[in-house]
């Protein structure tokens, strides 16, 4: 399956780059898309090691990894949208709450 091959390729590249890091803490889980639910960090793994794995996985896969969620999310999802801005500023257009 293409799904499996992508995972295998990613792991091979990860292994090459993270030779000194405990890859046994990285596990496959059930994800709908190949990039979903790929990783499960052991809770005992030091935070700095998790951070290294997260950033390496993120760079190799092209997707960001929210720490603690053990799954991947699409990159670029952090950009503030026009709808969010509109909601932030709607308050100012209503008078801003300042005492008159």
């Amino acid at each position, binding site marked *: 399956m293409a799904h499996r091959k992508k995972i295998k390729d990613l792991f091979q590249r990860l292994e090459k780059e993270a030779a000194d890091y405990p890859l046994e803490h990285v596990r496959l889980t059930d994800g709908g898309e190949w990039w979903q639910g790929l990783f499960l960090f052991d809770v005992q793994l030091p*935070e*700095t090691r998790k*951070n*290294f794995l997260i950033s390496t996985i993120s760079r190799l896969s092209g997707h*960001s*990894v*929210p*720490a*603690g*969620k053990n799954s991947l*999310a699409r990159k670029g*999802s*952090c950009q*503030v*949208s026009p*709808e*969010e*801005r509109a*909601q*932030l*500023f*709607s*308050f*100012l257009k209503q008078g*801003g*709450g*300042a*005492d008159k």
Partner: protein
Amino acid sequence: MALQSGPHIISFSSGKGGVGKTTVAVNIAVCLSREGKRVLLIDGDLGLANVDVVLGLDVRHTIRETVEDGRDLRDTLVEISPGFFVLPASSGVPEMTRLSREDQELLLKALEGVTGNFDYVLVDTAAGIGESVLWFNNWVNSHCIIFSPDPTSMTDAYALMKVLTTRYDKKNFLLIVNQVQSGKEGKAIFSNMERVLAQFLDIKPEFLGAIPRDNAVVRAIRSQKPFLQTEPDSRAGRALKRICISLTEGLNGS
């Protein structure tokens, strides 16, 4: 980083610069130490440090020497008053804003070596959403976000929280609205931010309080002293003390 059994480690970030982040962090540190707590204030703006300027310190050693020369971080601690210590950073050193993975780990270990002796560790981060800001925020337990009624400040604070939530799964946001005209304005601005955060990011921030525009703050900054020390009963001073109570009660779950 989960350090629930150790000190409360709190970052002070804003997104936008110039909203009073360092001034607030310094005065909260002063307030906590006056309550008898042992407080460490880390200048997390590693390349453009300001904590020493706000406190009028004559700094001889900084965090930089730990990263570059392996100097023991305990020898860099500056005692400001009984129980209140500062870890100064360097100014005008761009290299310190983009530490290698190895240097980050070295600094992290060094910091963890000194934080255990304190009740509260406050990290005054740089402005923006650069690597060091995200790195420090990933390290702490709680995130104090400071913003002003300025639309650019609100946008940047929201953007920072969005990055921390989306990429780092951070949710413990404590909000302070600085430079408000009135308490009513501060509460209204918080409520608006709270609504947008709930709607788009599904997170519920905590309101620590608002600090009014006050010339007492301006005078204190120019004299390089905390306003809680120079004019403790000013409007800003009273607001800061209320924020300090909210912070300690919130962190201790009361």
